[in-house]
């Protein structure tokens, strides 16, 4: 279409350029709209739901594993040194601490990686008082 226009009317060069610019502007606007739309919905709902379920499953076991490993280490050291229940108690508590630390750490990682959608630009919250 543009080619035909060009051939038929040679003299109105300014108007031709004008129309091309207009069309470019329109196209640019459409592109910006499409980009905005895509940015607004970065993940489809089922996909986001699946990712959230994956994260939940991850956190749940991490907490339990800490206590289990702590308890096992304590039990093994108890057997080694013959200090019956004491080391196991100590390491159970340490294991619980390790489990909680694991959960907090991976939750922080997830938060840093994926800010909640639709709440403006990603904000980096440094909420530990160091």
């Amino acid at each position, binding site marked *: 279409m543009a080619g035909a226009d060009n051939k038929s009317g040679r003299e109105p060069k300014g108007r031709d350029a004008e129309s091309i610019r207009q069309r470019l502007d329109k196209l640019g606007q459409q592109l910006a709209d499409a980009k905005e739309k895509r940015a607004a919905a970065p993940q489809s709902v089922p996909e986001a739901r699946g990712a959230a*379920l*994956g994260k939940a*499953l991850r956190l749940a076991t991490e907490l*339990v*594993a*800490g206590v*289990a490993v702590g308890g096992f*280490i304590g039990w093994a050291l108890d057997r080694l040194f013959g200090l019956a229940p004491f080391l196991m108690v100590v390491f159970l508590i340490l294991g619980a*601490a*390790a489990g909680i630390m694991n959960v907090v750490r991976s939750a922080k990682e997830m938060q840093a990686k994926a800010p909640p959608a639709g709440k403006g630009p990603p904000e980096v919250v440094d909420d530990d008082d160091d």
Partner: protein
Amino acid sequence: MIEAYAAGGAEHGAAGGGSLPNPMHQFEIKRFIPLELFGFDASFTNSALFMVIAGTIITLFTVYAMRNRALVPSRVQSVAELSYEFVANMVRDNAGTDGMKYFPFVFTLFMFVLVLNMLGMVPYSFTVTSHIIVTFALAAFIFLGVTLIGFIKHGAKFLKFFVPEGVPLVMLPLLVVIEVISYLTRPLSLSVRLFANMMAGHTMLKVFGAFVVALGLLGGWAPLAFMVAFTGLEILVAFLQAYVFAILTCIYLNDALHMHH
């Protein structure tokens, strides 16, 4: 008719006497080819058979899908390319560009666990990943490998990984112990998550499947409807667990390569 039903029930672990079939029967290991190596039981079991099937499926799938290497991919080829891109992006996002060296391993691992989980969803099949010894072996291999990579890459400096920064000296011994325990939880949480999800899901399916049969034509519809929905969820879980397993491998690799929390 009744005899056949009873025989079928016995085959699926019914204790007899009209009780429901045992939901744990499906996890039983059966020896197909008994074999003993150096005092260890290395028999070819149903578990081993399904691992071989999974390996064969993955190899055939990838080789067949990429046989043409067309610029415009066919349907199979685009599935293979999608799975490649999916894992490649996962590795790049979580372990960085230098983590791509380990892409073949992560891809193999992801496909293996995924196909094993999905094979488990086929009726009458065996779910290899519902045995903790299998998942723990995988997790322990990853754990040892990642630790070795850390020590090879950073030498003795890798021990700094266990020393948190900016902590008063008094607290340091305690925190180092906690850090070491938290590092040691990795293989356990990795293996328990996969095994527990698969075993719990398949037990639930079996229990509700038994309800359908037990309640019969009159009352069996409610558990049947639940089963349909739950089967869908189980397929999602089968995929998600493979995904989580692979993504955690990438995260652990990242820790070993770049050494920061």
